[in-house]
């Protein structure tokens, strides 16, 4: 049986036994190379599920859809390791009860599908520890280093050119599992801290604030980067900020469902070499 068949079987069993009321997985997309979120409630529909290397979306954001979890029934969800970390953060930030989530974990390694064992968030804690210890060097690392090697003026110009493209469609925010706020700060006009206009200044402010709010929370699933219709390399910023909280505070987001948010906690001996 192929890995995909095994997953379909497991999903069918979960639904048939009544353990979960719904499964959030991937189905066929509008083109052969696209996968899209699929919500199935019946074991018969398990055959519609796809599990393969093209399943790149982090579906965990759907878990906090209004009303989904309020009946206390369990929900099954297909997640890659980043998605599992997202679930940990959502739990740590009281957005969901991890006991309600049945994780159907999978990974994509070197372009091919690999099954993950376990179903509760704690089942994956050693996997996540391994991820922290062996943080891979993604392809964008070279670009990050290139940017860091620039003068501030060059860096500013680089980002100015990127942010000038932004159309404030907020796809980055809407696709992000961490952007569950009932009201985004940009939607607060009393006062209007962040310009809503999509001129470069407003775009700069928006992207900075979003990156700040994601610091120590982003799991680098790449969702925002893929969603951006004007191709702003958002992953670069998020990756850089993840590195910062790791270096400065030894914080790897989504380690566990009890992890303290990095900006709501502190250590007395946190680094402060920059403070005069």
């Amino acid at each position: 049986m192929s890995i995909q068949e095994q997953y379909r079987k497991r999903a069918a069993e979960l639904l048939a036994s009544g353990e979960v009321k719904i499964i959030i997985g991937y189905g066929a997309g509008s083109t052969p190379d696209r996968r899209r979120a699929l919500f199935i409630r019946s074991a018969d529909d398990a055959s519609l599920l796809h599990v393969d290397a093209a399943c790149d979306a982090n579906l965990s954001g759907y878990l906090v859809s209004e009303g989904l979890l309020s009946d206390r029934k369990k929900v099954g969800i297909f997640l890659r390791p980043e998605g599992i970390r997202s679930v940990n953060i959502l739990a740590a930030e009281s957005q969901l009860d991890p006991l309600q989530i049945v994780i159907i974990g999978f990974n994509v390694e070197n372009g091919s599908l690999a099954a993950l064992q376990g179903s509760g968030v704690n089942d994956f804690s050693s996997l996540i520890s391994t991820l922290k210890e062996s943080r891979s060097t993604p392809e964008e690392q070279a670009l990050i280093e290139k940017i860091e090697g620039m003068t501030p003026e060059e860096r500013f110009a680089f980002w100015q050119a990127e942010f000038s493209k932004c159309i404030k469609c907020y796809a980055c925010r809407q696709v992000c599992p961490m952007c569950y706020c009932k009201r985004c700060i940009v939607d607060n006009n009393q006062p209007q801290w962040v310009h809503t206009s999509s001129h470069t200044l407003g775009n700069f402010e928006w992207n900075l604030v979003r990156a700040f709010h994601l610091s120590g929370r982003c799991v680098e699933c790449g969702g925002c980067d893929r969603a951006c219709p004007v191709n702003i390399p958002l992953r670069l910023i998020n990756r850089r900020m993840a590195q910062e909280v790791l270096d400065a505070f030894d914080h790897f987001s989504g380690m566990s469902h009890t992890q303290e948010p990095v900006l709501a906690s502190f250590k007395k001996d946190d680094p402060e070499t920059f403070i005069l």
Partner: protein
Amino acid sequence: MTKILLRDRLDDCISRWHAAGLDVIGPVSKNNISQFDTIQKAGELDFGIILPDRTLKDLFFPQTEPMFRYRIGKQQIDTEEYLPPGRQRIVFGARPCDVSAMAIDDPLFGWDYKDTYWFKRRTETVIVTIACTSADEFCMCTSLKLAPDSPQGSDILLRPLEGNRGWLVEELTERGRDAFSLIEGLLENATGDPLPLAVVPVKFDLDACREWLQNPENFESHFWKEISMRCIGCGTCTFLCPTCHCFDFQDEGDTYTGIRRKNWDSCSFALFTMHTSGHNPRSTQSARWRQRIMHKFNYFPGKFSLNSCSGCGRCTRECPVDMGITETLQEITKLSK
């Protein structure tokens, strides 16, 4: 007698237009995005793409536009109006779907109050459209009863010739003729066989859809919830739609002075209909998606006898969760049968 514009004459044409004081604008790909931008040389144009990522409406209805500056004085508030710079422009290489969209929005911006900004730019712009000889799986102009060579909105329509050597010129309007009179000697008086048009299959039954949408019973159909379940409520489809035209006003400034701006808005955003009281009449994403479809294919045609969609397919092409108008209307077509 038909005329041909040869590709290798394009630089000369651009020079002539420049000399006549026209800005030349066309699809340009740079910095990982393709969009309409001013050009100096033909080489800057990207003819390799089916459609630029961003739409033609950017040129007439920019995403953010300053309308006036205000200065707050002790006794009164002074204002200073901002108008578009008022330059004559020629757009070279737009696609029929994008250009049709401008024609779709013309009545919208002019049915009551005539939008100064829109019409000033419309009258200052000559649009040279190139008919499509290729399409992708998202293109759907034919489903909207348009075609890869629809003339609506265009001043000139070009049909690509074999071997990429140039275009067969069709002058559609007075303004188009005027603009092309500037390049009189650069056109060949000849004829040729245009390349076959792109084949764009019809994907849904527009009339059946409209009928279904008009049936009040379907307004509360469970279908809307199901079809929009994965919608995340971003503005990608709106902002990359050539016909979407909703906007919002925003005052930006400090204590002493500021600017009132007109910004794009999207019916996909929860904030779009949020009342000050906190009540939101379209409180769910399914209601917002329904509104989008209803507006485009029921209310807008009801008022203007035009669909507020020209079939460019960007909504589906760019949707972060692989949704879009096509899928919804295909499902509605099924439901209506």
